[in-house]
């Protein structure tokens, strides 16, 4: 019997077009994704340059897994349908009386579904295999085909997942006899998986996540989270404990579920029903036998007018709307979405463990999580509504009534819109509730309404229109939903195939962003694109009306001929209007964004970078004069979103040769350039904006040259935001306004594989610091050393405009405010202009004027920032050198400009999102006072960049970013104590290890880094902090002070990381020189762990602690490949009988912290107390030591504070129990 049913099921699918459609879709998707990632589209778009091997085991698993998630959406209509079909066709009334066993029936049904799904899964694998190696892909990005990779991924991950989800869906459909229920289950499960992953997202919970993640991803991440690029490229996914336990657990659960189905499934005629109301049985009897002879129907009026149809449309939409909100899929999706949102509300937005105040934009931001729910509901219910009559088999009754098609169709659209409004209202209500819960009572209802019901709604509405269209054409809600999901998720990926213009990608276009300071800014482009898509959607809606099923058309051909017949009158006119408007608006947008003159495609951009280098690189070392003074005039017009500016550059030929040509590297803004010496423009390049001026009278060594520049900003257009000026909160810097001198290597392609394609030599990015000829420039600018700076900035009357320097004069003229700033100290050629309606907080501190320019309501953390400025000024001043200014200013700018802070001379623009609205809780140990620490960091830059600046060679940011971060850490430590450090260092360690896995070119050691944030911030701060721990803070700071004195405000040749590290080496005892080598000169990682610990209570009341632990360290090369020694024989090895593989390590002569801790109650809170912490010299991998402590220990650890870089930091500690002797 099994084989009969099984074969019948397979036959059913093999005869169904849907099966082949699914196969084709998945084959196509996986082909597209894998071919695109392997560089198939490189001929039409930018080169896929990367150090990644796309078909490595990790790469294969990622694509395979991601696409399989889509298949889960098909489960209800494949695995669920296998059993549901018998109910739907009422075959079960006959079938269930037949003599086959439950086992035969259920297994045949279930496994036939699994086989069909597996075939579709196979098509994914096939698409990948073909896609990766398709002619035209880039052979540098792929490795040889490895069948084992696919097989392993399928057997270990995909198949168990398919079985699990299949069993769940099968169970749900078998018992509820409702395919929609199966569908909800899939969505709920996917959401639940998301919640599990985010709730267990902390590194400490990774073991739990590894076991509980139903997809097994958590288990893989457990091992591969910190895999370097080289490991990702080469290693097979480890099938070790966690993966095995996870897979066994979930296979067991699958079996259990299927077992339960088997146990409780009955060949009964009626579905299992769950009712919360107990109804009393009632005997139903017929009572009325009277005949009827006379019928008088009451006199009623029938109204078929247009206006009545409009009213009817509204009424019908209410009926459909009620149906939606009362249905289980809707309720479940909303509930799950809400849970996600609540989880999100409490998690997201934390920086260094400190939450952000629940301001309205933050609430709305998190509502974005809910947008998946809104879209899924829209896609699904569009199908449910369009097919509602058909599903209920009431379509013949409805279709024979004199209701026009458009009334029916549009009532569905309106019902869908009402549903979206309800969902948007849910976001608003939960946002407000969350704010109330947190005691935040500034409810900006207007802001909620504008964003949700106007701006966000437009986007959802555009999807609603497409959904109605697709669902009408397809006529099968679940297939329709699937197609819509693929469209909505896939749309942005079209860019990888060279389709870059938003007008070709449904519902794409500029977005909007809110800042407390500047509101939504300019919304016109956003609104125009939405109008464009709404016109498109309305055109589609009319087509949907033409194809609206009325009655029973027998084929698609018939539907087309019906549609043709319907294309007249109102439909034809409105379609033509919408379509013509859509196309014309599209054309108009294209004129501005898509024509050759207005748009640079990714491909063209790449070619230009090649051309730039080939054409102008030869001028890189051509002698140029140096800018020595800048006097700028900037007029900011906030209302008009416009600025004009002029500047006088004074230049001196500091070389010892006469200069005959000047290279002006400017931007595309409307500008004029006038030199005060006769010259000739010999080359003008309007593409690269690189002009060459020839001076017949050469500029002799020591000569001065002046350049007058005028420039006007771009203006915003209807479809594009081009001006950097904001109505409130402008922040522009000199690089975006004024020209620079000479060739800049910033535009060069960096990926060596891509460069090879264009016959460019490999790019080493920057010269090595040991190259003494490369030290002529700072890493900030190529055309100047230190400059005199002066600026006059004007803005509207209600705003304050700021530039570096001290305010000389302020006046009002022509209803505008003018500010004249002048620096009396040398600064880098790096400055910015800010303008907004500011409130100012000022304080004099030891002769320094501390000022914060802030948005009026943002008063929450001003004191913390003030304190941060003071502590940082103090620390740097005391330890390194005096502060060079008499003033320090923090200037708030809108978060729409970014979430960062930046230090210019005595001026530090600071985003509203990175401190002004932080909700710091001083009592919490988990949160860092980041308004304080970020301020300290920026102030430290006044030394570490603005006094000491490295030459433009590798590792320069060690002297600026790493040092600023080190100071910030130290200031934080002195203010808040060592405990706070652990939060900070833990974050830094995790951040470093995680981000280095994403490296696309190379990772160099700290002192030769390419400027990656994860190296100079995270690793830099850890390394300097660890060094201060090894050699002492004072000793370290003294060394740095010596270095500072030597190099601050120096002229070329500029200092380098080598000089800096040499100073550190001088202060480091011989026994610890290895630390410098490990931390600065190489990439060194530890594998430290406690293997065993015993505590014995001694007779004298003391405790003897015996700790067994391992210490091992290894190095990574720039691709992340592991190595241990530099020459043969300098690798340590340790192996016991129980171990398969030995533990290897570089030679050890290391000093490692050994700690013993207990817990004590302090002020009602349990706190950890150190009983013992000392560095021990370690020379072998396996170690055992005995330590006697006075109190009862609770925990022991090797490098317990994670000062060293270690990918498994949590096994450094172990809890201990006391055994009595």
């Amino acid at each position, binding site marked *: 019997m099994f084989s009969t049913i099984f074969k019948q099921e397979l036959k059913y699918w093999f005869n169904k077009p849907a099966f082949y459609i699914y196969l084709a879709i998945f084959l196509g998707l996986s082909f597209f994704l894998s071919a695109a990632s392997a560089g198939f589209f490189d001929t039409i778009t930018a080169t896929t340059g990367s150090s990644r091997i796309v078909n490595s085991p990790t790469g294969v698993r990622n694509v395979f897994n991601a696409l399989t998630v889509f298949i889960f959406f098909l489960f209800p209509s494949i695995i669920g349908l296998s059993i549901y079909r018998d109910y739907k066709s009422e075959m079960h009334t006959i079938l269930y009386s037949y003599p086959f066993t439950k086992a035969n029936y259920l297994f045949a049904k279930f496994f036939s579904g699994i086989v069909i799904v597996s075939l579709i899964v196979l098509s994914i694998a096939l698409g990948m295999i073909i896609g990766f190696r398709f002619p035209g892909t880039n052979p540098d990005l792929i490795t040889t085909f490895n069948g084992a990779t696919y097989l392993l991924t399928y057997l270990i991950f995909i198949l168990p997942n398919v079985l699990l989800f299949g069993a769940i869906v099968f169970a749900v459909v078998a018992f509820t006899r409702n395919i929609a229920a199966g569908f909800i289950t899939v969505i709920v499960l996917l959401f639940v998986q998301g919640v599990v992953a985010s709730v267990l997202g902390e590194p400490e919970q990774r073991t739990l996540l590894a076991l509980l993640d139903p997809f097994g991803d958590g288990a893989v991440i457990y091992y591969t989270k910190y895999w370097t690029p080289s490991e990702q490229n080469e290693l097979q996914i480890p099938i070790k404990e966690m993966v095995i336990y996870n897979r066994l657990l979930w296979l067991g659960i699958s079996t259990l579920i299927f077992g339960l189905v088997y146990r409780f499934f009955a060949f009964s005629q009626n579905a299992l029903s769950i009712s919360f109301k107990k109804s009393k049985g009632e005997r139903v009897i017929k*009572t009325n036998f009277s005949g009827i002879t006379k019928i008088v129907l009451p006199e*009623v009026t029938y*109204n078929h007018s247009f206006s009545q149809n409009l009213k009817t449309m509204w009424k019908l939409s209410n009926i459909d709307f009620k149906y939606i909100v009362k249905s289980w899929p809707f309720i479940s999706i909303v509930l799950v979405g809400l849970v996600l949102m609540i989880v999100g509300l409490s998690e997201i937005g934390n920086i260094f463990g400190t939450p952000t105040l629940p301001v309205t934009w933050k609430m709305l931001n998190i509502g974005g999580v809910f947008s998946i729910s809104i879209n899924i509901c829209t896609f699904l219910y569009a199908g449910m509504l369009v097919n509602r009559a058909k599903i*209920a088999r009431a379509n013949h*009754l409805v279709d024979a009534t*004199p209701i026009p098609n458009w009334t029916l169709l549009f009532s569905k659209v309106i019902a869908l819109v009402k549903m979206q409004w309800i969902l948007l209202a849910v976001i608003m209500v939960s946002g407000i509730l969350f704010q109330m819960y947190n005691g935040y009572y500034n409810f900006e209802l207007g802001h909620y309404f504008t964003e949700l019901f106007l701006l966000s709604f437009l986007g959802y509405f555009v999807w609603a229109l497409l959904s109605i269209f697709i669902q009408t054409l397809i006529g099968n809600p679940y297939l329709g939903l699937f197609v819509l999901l693929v469209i909505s998720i896939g749309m942005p990926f079209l860019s990888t195939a060279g389709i870059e213009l938003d007008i070709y990608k449904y519902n794409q276009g500029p977005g909007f962003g809110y800042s407390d300071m500047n509101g939504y800014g300019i919304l016109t482009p956003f609104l125009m694109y939405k109008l464009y898509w709404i016109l498109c959607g309305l055109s589609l809606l009319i087509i949907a009306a033409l194809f609206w099923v009325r009655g029973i058309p027998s084929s698609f051909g018939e539907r087309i001929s019906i549609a043709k017949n319907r294309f007249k009158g109102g439909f034809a006119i409105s379609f033509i209007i919408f379509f013509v408007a859509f196309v014309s608006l599209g054309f108009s947008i294209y004129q501005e964004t898509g024509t050759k003159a207005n748009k640079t495609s990714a491909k063209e951009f790449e070619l230009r970078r090649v051309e730039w280098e080939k054409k102008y690189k030869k001028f890189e070392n051509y002698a140029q004069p140096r800018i020595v003074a800048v006097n700028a005039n900037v007029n900011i017009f906030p209302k008009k979103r416009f600025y004009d500016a002029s500047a006088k550059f004074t230049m001196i030929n500091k070389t010892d040769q006469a200069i005959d040509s000047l290279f002006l590297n400017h931007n595309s803004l409307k500008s004029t350039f006038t030199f005060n010496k006769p010259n000739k423009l010999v080359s003008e390049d309007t593409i690269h904006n690189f002009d060459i001026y020839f001076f017949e009278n050469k500029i002799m060594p020591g000569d001065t040259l002046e350049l007058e520049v005028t420039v006007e900003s771009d203006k915003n257009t209807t479809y594009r935001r081009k001006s950097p000026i904001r109505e409130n909160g402008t922040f522009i810097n000199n690089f975006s306004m004024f020209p620079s001198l000479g060739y800049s290597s910033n535009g060069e392609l960096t990926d060596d594989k891509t460069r090879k394609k264009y016959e460019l030599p490999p790019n080493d990015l920057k010269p090595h610091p040991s190259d003494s000829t490369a030290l002529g420039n700072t890493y900030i600018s190529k055309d100047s050393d230190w400059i005199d700076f002066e600026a006059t900035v004007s803005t509207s009357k209600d705003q304050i405009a700021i530039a570096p320097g001290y305010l000389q004069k302020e006046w009002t003229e022509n209803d505008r405010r003018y500010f004249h700033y002048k620096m009396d100290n040398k600064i880098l050629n790096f400055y910015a202009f800010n303008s907004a309606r500011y409130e100012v907080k000022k304080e004099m501190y030891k002769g320094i004027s501390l000022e914060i320019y802030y948005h009026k309501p943002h008063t929450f953390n001003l004191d913390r920032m003030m304190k941060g400025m003071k502590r940082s000024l103090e620390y740097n001043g005391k330890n390194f050198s005096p502060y060079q200014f008499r003033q320090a200013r923090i200037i708030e700018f809108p978060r729409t400009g970014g979430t960062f802070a930046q230090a210019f001379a005595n001026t530090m623009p600071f985003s509203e999102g990175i401190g002004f609205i932080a909700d710091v809780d001083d009592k919490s140990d988990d949160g860092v006072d980041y308004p304080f620490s970020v301020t300290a960091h920026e102030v430290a830059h006044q030394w570490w960049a603005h006094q000491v600046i490295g030459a433009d060679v590798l590792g320069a940011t060690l002297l600026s970013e790493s040092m600023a971060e080190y100071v910030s850490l130290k200031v934080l430590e002195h203010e808040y104590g060592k405990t706070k450090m652990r939060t900070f260092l833990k974050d830094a360690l995790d951040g470093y290890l995680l981000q280095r896995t994403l490296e696309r070119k190379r990772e160099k050691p700290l002192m030769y880094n390419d400027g990656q944030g994860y190296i100079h911030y995270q690793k830099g701060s850890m390394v300097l902090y660890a060094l201060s721990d090894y050699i002492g803070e004072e000793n370290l700071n003294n060394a740095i002070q010596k270095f500072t004195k030597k190099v601050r405000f120096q002229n070329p040749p500029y200092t380098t990381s080598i000089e800096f590290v040499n100073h550190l080496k001088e202060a480091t005892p011989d026994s610890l020189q290895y630390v410098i080598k490990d931390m600065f000169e190489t990439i060194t990682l530890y594998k430290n762990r406690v293997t065993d610990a015993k505590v014995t209570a001694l007779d004298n009341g003391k405790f003897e602690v015996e700790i067994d632990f391992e210490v091992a360290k290894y190095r990574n090369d720039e691709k992340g490949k592991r190595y241990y020694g530099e020459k043969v024989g300098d690798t340590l090895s340790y192996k016991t009988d129980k171990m398969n593989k030995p533990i290897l390590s570089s030679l050890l002569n290391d000093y490692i912290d050994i700690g013993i801790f207990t817990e004590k109650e302090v002020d009602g809170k349990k706190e950890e107390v150190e009983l013992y912490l000392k560095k021990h010299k370690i020379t072998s991998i396996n170690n055992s030591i005995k330590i006697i402590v006075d109190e009862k220990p609770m925990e022991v650890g090797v490098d317990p504070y994670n000062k060293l870089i270690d990918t498994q930091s949590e096994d450094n500690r172990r809890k201990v129990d006391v055994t009595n002797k």
Partner: protein
Amino acid sequence: MKLVIQNLTKTYKNGVKAIDNLSIEIGTGMFGLLGPNGAGKSSLMRTIATLQSPDSGSITFGDINVLEDNMSLRKVLGYLPQSFGVYPKMSAEDLLDYFATLKGISNKTERKAIVKEVLEITNLYDVRRKHVAGYSGGMKQRFGIAQLLLNNPKLIIVDEPTAGLDPAERHRFLNVLREVGTNCTVIFSTHIVEDVKELCNEMAILNGGRILKHTTPQEATGVLKGTIWQKTIEREDLEENEKLYNILSSNYNQDNTLNLRVHASEKPSEDFVEVEPQLDDVYFIALKQDEPELV
């Protein structure tokens, strides 16, 4: 008003000719459409009810060109399909209100009044608040009749409506139909000959997409007067008799004997007696004549 169908043809994708060049005129009153399963009754009725478009031919009702202007027909149409479903979780009252809205009754009080009336006519008033999806087959059928009445239709098309009704409801239903059908055209398909006899003033027999006979019940039986013969035989003799006579029907009696009915212009043999022609005979004769000749 007259329903005129000319040269109507509909072939399905699977090659079945459901309606084969069919022409007929149907006037006011009850019109019974008799035919075996698969004769094309439902196809014809769906086509008249604007739910299906024919491949060729024309349909007019009064001055409405049904195929061109289906909206006008829908305004005066009452249609009850052979089987139908309803929206789950909706009471009869709400559903009827919904259909009344679809049928263009804009005034809320009027809608209420007519919904109440049709509920009473169909004997559903007591259960008006129950979900229709939970109704028994007969109740659901009555609900179908109730919705049909809402727009006071001029053309009523009911596809096998009495199937599944208990005797009391069947009578009640036939009464309702006759009552509303006095001034309008009612097309009524069935394979229960009894219904047609009791109710219809005109009838047609349909098979294989063609009208085999268009007549009235009286005329049809009148024509056959003197040509229907009956005898009672033993079960074992059936096959022998089948060879000899053109047998219309054979029904068991209580004692396991068979009543044999034969159509012949003259008495076939002595043991036959002449009987009154019944509508069944008309039906069987028409179908027999349509059978392809065996060569």
